[in-house]
């Protein structure tokens, strides 16, 4: 997320670069790695615990720093965040701190009681992954997934007045259902429908040849998205990000975002598709991690590797082989 408009300013002024901000504007936090599903297109290879996941004390120490730094917007994902034992206490802390909170979940653990708690917490939104308008399409991608549970979760959340969004990742298995999925989101009363090109990282990279839609499929998909955006204008937000991960990296190399991505063990990545970590929120104060993040984007090692990835997208498969940019030894993810 970048500054999109300046008020009462002149072009080129401060506030247009991530360097200008005293703290991140956005925190993407993967609170856990545990997940009940084994999605073919998971960008995190989630499923099991990873070594060194943050303890309860470390989590709340981190959250106090998030509040003190004035980070305005946090998105919690996983793994499956509702499987984290401290999830609701974390959400309450964030809510009481006046921070906007988005929760990204597969929706399978959202029962009536959970919906009541979500409604009381008055989140910015709950984002449910629904990768099809039918159970057959959704479940062929989301192994062990249950479309009916996720669909019911959306219905319950909307009924209770929780701002609910659906996220849909197009693959060769489900891209044909993007139109019906948008209609479904609207009929369920969702606030928004989000999609964009699948990212070639994590488990998705391992299954890339099976998952990646053809250019023709994408072309048809974006045509539908354009039509649906018009159809639901002022009724439901249909948002799609038309660039792939390589285009994103080209852009971020020039203009890193004012955000941090913290993974379950506290490591802070520069960006999902790159293997680089700039610090660990268990080991360094968050303010220091932010400064390290800003510095890391200018490290020759980061710039050179990113340029190599842009030339050879096969290197995206290394995105979870973490390397601490400020240490010589490398750390490999076993997730």
């Amino acid at each position, binding site marked *: 997320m970048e*500054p999109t408009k300046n008020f009462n300013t002149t072009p080129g002024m401060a506030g247009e670069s991530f360097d200008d901000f005293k703290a991140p504007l956005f925190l993407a936090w993967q609170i856990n790695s545990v997940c009940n599903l084994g999605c073919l297109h998971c960008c995190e290879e989630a499923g099991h615990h990873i070594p060194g996941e943050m303890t309860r004390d470390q989590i709340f120490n981190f959250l106090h720093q998030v509040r003190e730094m004035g980070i305005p917007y946090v998105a919690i994902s996983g793994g499956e965040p509702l499987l984290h034992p401290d999830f609701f206490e974390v959400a309450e802390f964030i809510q009481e701190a006046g921070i906007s909170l988005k929760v990204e979940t597969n929706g399978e653990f959202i029962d009536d009681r959970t919906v009541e708690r979500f409604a009381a917490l008055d989140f910015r939104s709950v984002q449910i992954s629904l990768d099809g308008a039918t159970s057959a399409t959704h479940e062929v991608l989301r192994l062990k997934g249950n479309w009916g549970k996720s669909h019911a979760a959306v219905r319950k959340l909307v009924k209770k007045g929780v701002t609910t969004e659906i996220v849909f990742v197009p693959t060769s298995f489900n891209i044909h259902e993007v139109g019906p999925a948008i209609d479904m989101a609207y009929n369920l009363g969702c606030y928004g429908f989000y999609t964009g090109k699948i990212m070639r990282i994590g488990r998705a990279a391992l299954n890339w040849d099976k998952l990646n839609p053809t250019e023709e499929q994408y072309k048809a998909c974006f045509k539908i998205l354009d039509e649906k955006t018009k159809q639901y204008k002022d009724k439901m937000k249909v948002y799609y990000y038309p660039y792939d991960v390589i285009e994103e990296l080209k852009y971020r190399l020039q203009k890193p975002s004012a955000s941090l991505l913290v993974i379950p063990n506290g490591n802070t990545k520069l960006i999902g598709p790159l293997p680089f970590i700039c610090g660990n929120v268990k080991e360094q104060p968050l303010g220091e991690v932010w400064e390290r993040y800003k510095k890391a984007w200018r490290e020759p090692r980061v710039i050179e590797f990113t340029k190599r990835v842009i030339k050879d997208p096969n290197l995206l498969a290394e995105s979870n082989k973490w390397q601490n940019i400020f240490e010589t030894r490398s750390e490999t993810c076993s997730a």
Partner: protein
Amino acid sequence: MEFKKHVRIRKEKFGMVIFETLKEKVFVTNPTGAEIIERLKDKKTPDTIITELASQYGADAAVIADDVNCFINNLVRQEVLAK
């Protein structure tokens, strides 16, 4: 006038950053814009803000009024501030 529910505001060296978190849009202001926003947060009316800024800067209130009203209208148009 008040900022909308999902709007978060933070002071920065350069002025102020305004984050409409529902629409995920970020806006920045210079220090003068920050002065207006601080007063809007304190629930001050545009008239009060104009008077205070005119006094603070020793400027013509009519000129200040144009800038303040333009700025506030911008905030409303961008749906971060509700009238």
